[in-house]
């Protein structure tokens, strides 16, 4: 299926009209999207078409990676009705990873995702400056350039064109384009307001943005200089870590109900303290900070989508997501794996090829 629907209005207005129509016509039973709650923006699940007015589905912000929330909603089974889900491309990729890991169900969900100019960072949110930043953001996006004040990993994100979306939206000031990628999308859009025509998303039009994203990624990796870390660099960077585990709790891929790093198994017992102190003569309390970060990378780095949540919640501004994007990228390359690309492709650690990787064994 392919086709294009053009709807007049700014991004949020145009998509609201579209979603309202879908609810009215009974083609869907609910909408999952960003909405305003007081001074905040949060994900809402609404079934009443009047409530659609409270939604800001294309607002360039991510209060939580939606894959986390969708997993909580669908973990024990699909939702009863058909739900239109409006999320960013990296949230959709993280969701696909969770489906592969049997933590979520894709049934009954219709995915609508924008070509993504990135999301404004938490500094803007904390200062109530989101609204003020939007016009500048839209201007940059219209020029297919990186905007100010977006997350560092967004500046470096090459996967801003959604993969696996039923409908891809190009947000614009005056009128938004909705590209219908699947039969499901064609089905529900029948009779929708706006101009329906033939047409496919012209990815080449986003070359300028892709160019700056690639350049920014290279620059980010170069500036990080992860390969120079060694023990000293790890202590330098994570020496500030409070051990709050915020980065883990907001990570969409970290779904374990009992995280290894929160288990009593990893607490030092008195004899362990004694033996460590005999060796070192001193110990930071609590221990296991570097263990936590290196361990988390080995556990979930293969599926890291570089969404940037972990950096944004870090109270001491450790560039967690940049470090994870860089190291995730390295381990993903070992298995030629792009998280969230193909829902049928198994996660590399749950499969193998008999004849491979001979360079690491002997």
């Amino acid at each position, binding site marked *: 299926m392919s086709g294009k629907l053009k709807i007049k209005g700014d991004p949020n207005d145009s998509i609201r009209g579209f979603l309202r129509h879908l609810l009215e016509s009974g083609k869907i039973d609910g909408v999952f999207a960003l909405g305003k709650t007081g001074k905040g923006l949060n994900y809402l699940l609404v079934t009443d078409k009047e409530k659609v007015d409270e939604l800001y589905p294309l607002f360039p912000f991510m209060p939580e990676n939606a894959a986390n929330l969708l997993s909580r909603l669908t973990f024990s089974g699909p939702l009863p009705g058909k739900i239109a889900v409006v999320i960013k491309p990296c949230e959709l990729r993280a969701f696909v990873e969770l489906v592969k890991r049997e933590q979520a169900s894709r049934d009954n969900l219709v995915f609508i995702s924008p070509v993504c100019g990135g999301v404004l960072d938490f500094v803007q949110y904390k200062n109530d400056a989101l609204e003020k930043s939007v016009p500048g953001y839209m201007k940059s996006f219209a020029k297919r350039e990186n905007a100010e004040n977006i997350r560092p990993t967004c500046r470096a994100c090459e996967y801003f064109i959604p993969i696996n979306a039923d409908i891809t939206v190009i947000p614009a000031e005056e009128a938004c384009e909705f590209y219908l990628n699947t039969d499901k999308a064609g089905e529900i859009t029948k009779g929708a307001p706006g101009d329906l025509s033939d047409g496919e998303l012209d990815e080449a039009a986003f070359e300028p943005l892709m160019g700056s994203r690639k350049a920014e990624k290279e620059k980010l990796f170069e500036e990080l200089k992860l390969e120079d870390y060694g023990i000293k660099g790890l202590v330098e960077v994570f020496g500030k870590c409070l051990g709050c585990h915020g980065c883990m709790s907001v990570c969409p891929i970290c779904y374990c109900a009992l995280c290894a790093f929160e288990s009593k198994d990893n607490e030092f017992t008195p004899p362990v303290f004694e033996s460590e102190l005999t060796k070192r003569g001193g110990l930071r309390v609590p221990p296991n900070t570097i263990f936590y970060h290196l361990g988390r990378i080995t556990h979930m780095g293969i599926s890291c989508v570089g969404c940037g949540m972990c950096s944004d919640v870090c109270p001491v501004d450790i560039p967690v997501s940049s470090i994870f994007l860089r190291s995730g990228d390295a381990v993903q390359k070992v298995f030629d794996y792009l998280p969230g690309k193909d829902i049928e492709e198994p996660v590399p650690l749950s499969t*193998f090829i008999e004849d491979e990787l001979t360079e690491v064994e002997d």
Partner: protein
Amino acid sequence: MATDKNNDFTPNIIGFLCNWCTYTGADLAGTSRLQYPPSILPIRVMCSSRVDPLFLISSILRGADAVLVGGCHPGDCHYQKGNYYTRRRFALLKKVFDTFGLESDRIRLSWISASEGPRFAQVVTEYTGKIKELGPNKYAEEVFL
């Protein structure tokens, strides 16, 4: 070239050895009275795939000079497929070490069958020599783990 100081140094190598192959191979090396350095601390696991990468990270952070994971040759795992998963996890961990500039030579994956007592002795001897050259693991001095 190993320095004099390194000659005095006997590395601490933690061995996570699969019960069905490498652990039995180690036993055979012992009963055959083969000589090898007293550097390895064997920990028996039921399959090499029981070894979570966290075991290796923890060993290195806690000051072990090296970690050897020993399992059955590909195709010979007692549970058919365990060691193929081990190899993938190990490749990933090695990449993590390399990416962060950590010494990935301090972790090693060797396939040693139950009948390969001599190979076990040879792997331990050779690896011990290599770790001697690398010197002691500096992480044993860090206050921040």
